[in-house]
């Protein structure tokens, strides 16, 4: 009998929502939540013997400590294979699933997870672990569990896993030596000819999709600099007058802070759908640190604070939308003579 350990966050692990995001790691016997579906797909040859569950904040805030704890449990549980998630397009959960698979691999236990292309877990972990593609939301749960189960059974049986383009997992950038009928020179010339004649061709060395960030030159004189506050923390005026979306943002807003010495509690609320908003609601300066920046403005440390702050809810936001929003905000800030930005991310 093949033994399988499954990893879930607090939500799918049936502990709670964002308010339970700090829940420490625990281990339950047998399948939990979607683990029942996974068990069904695995069939009689394999058994989900245990489920590791951890809160999203707890896991993502210190991935190394989280990984150590997971590793200790895996050493004790000794499964034949580990399945994490699926975490769909989730940020923190996706990172946790990647870390779980990485730690399993460290113990020579094969592992697999499934993440949507928008999850940041892919960029961080795809070079080291098997990540199957999945839908952005849990609507694709059943179909994804089926593929995860099949892949896990193959891993447990030590079957040879083929390259990413035929197997469908996110390419790890691993290159294996293999014999080819044409030499590298011939293949390169073929590619060049194909390119010159407009025919289709496939590179053998894809470049990373995310271009490196080009850092801006630093502020020369802070005493004369105008500073802008930007947040992806979803902090809006109480009542959310403009209906800012709580997730999957495609737009941004700016609101005046002119003449305000701080973000007044009671006048703002966080509508961000991806973290426990209670602290931000009690003291909005945790997300938009206007009180501290004003104090430094009064003390002459900075030249000035832009009269508006910029906001959206950065959860489930597509990378293409994030880039466009970044460009739009940058253009707006430059038009207002801003010299530097403090961007608070939650």
């Amino acid at each position, binding site marked *: 009998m093949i033994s399988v350990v499954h990893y879930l966050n607090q939500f799918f692990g049936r502990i709670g929502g964002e308010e339970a995001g700090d829940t420490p790691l625990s281990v339950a016997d047998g399948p939990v939540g979607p683990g029942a579906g996974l068990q069904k797909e695995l069939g009689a040859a394999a058994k989900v013997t245990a489920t590791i569950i951890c809160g999203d*904040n707890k896991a993502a*805030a210190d991935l190394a400590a989280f990984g150590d704890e997971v590793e200790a449990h895996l050493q004790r549980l000794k499964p034949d294979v580990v399945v994490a998630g699926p975490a769909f397009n989730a940020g923190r959960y996706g990172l946790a699933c990647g870390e779980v698979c990485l730690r399993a691999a460290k113990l020579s236990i094969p592992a697999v997870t499934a993440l949507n292309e928008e999850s940041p877990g892919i960029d961080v972990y795809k070079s080291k672990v098997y990540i199957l593609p999945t839908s952005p939301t849990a609507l694709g749960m059943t179909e994804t569990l089926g593929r995860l189960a099949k892949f896990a059974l193959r891993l447990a049986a030590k079957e040879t896993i083929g390259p990413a383009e035929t197997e469908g997992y996110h390419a790890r950038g691993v290159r294996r030596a293999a014999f080819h009928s044409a030499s590298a020179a011939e293949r390169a010339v073929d590619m060049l000819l194909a390119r010159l004649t407009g025919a289709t061709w496939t590179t053998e060395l894809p470049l990373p999709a995310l271009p490196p960030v*080009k*850092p801006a030159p630093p502020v020369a004189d802070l005493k004369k600099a105008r500073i802008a506050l930007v947040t992806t923390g979803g902090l809006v005026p109480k009542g959310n007058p403009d209906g800012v979306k709580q997730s999957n943002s495609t737009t941004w807003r700016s609101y005046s802070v002119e003449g305000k010495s701080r973000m007044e509690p009671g006048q703002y609320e966080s509508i961000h759908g991806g973290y426990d908003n209670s602290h931000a609601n009690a003291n909005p300066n945790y997300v938009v640190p206007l009180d*501290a920046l004003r104090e430094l403005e009064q003390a002459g*440390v900075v030249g000035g604070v832009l009269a508006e702050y910029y906001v959206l809810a950065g959860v489930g936001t597509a990378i293409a939308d994030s*880039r466009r929003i970044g*460009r739009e905000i940058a253009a707006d800030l*430059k038009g207002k003579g801003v010299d530097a*930005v403090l961007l608070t991310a939650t």
Partner: protein
Amino acid sequence: MTAELEGAGLPTAMISAIGPVAAELGAARVLRGIKIPHPCGDPGLDSARDHDLRLRIVRGALHAVTTAVAKPTLFDPVAPS
């Protein structure tokens, strides 16, 4: 977003509770924040110390935007001089 802001010539300090991840994904100037639901402070502290912590975080972020960086760099909160 930080990529586009930096690329437009605006030095940007990203205050994040998961700073190493932000740096791994390419953010140029990252200030280590406290926790995901409260990056700029700690509700577990009394209000004076909490406020002082937030000042340190903002000072650290301002230090980041006045520092030349060539690659993703992590910064810590800074005590007043």
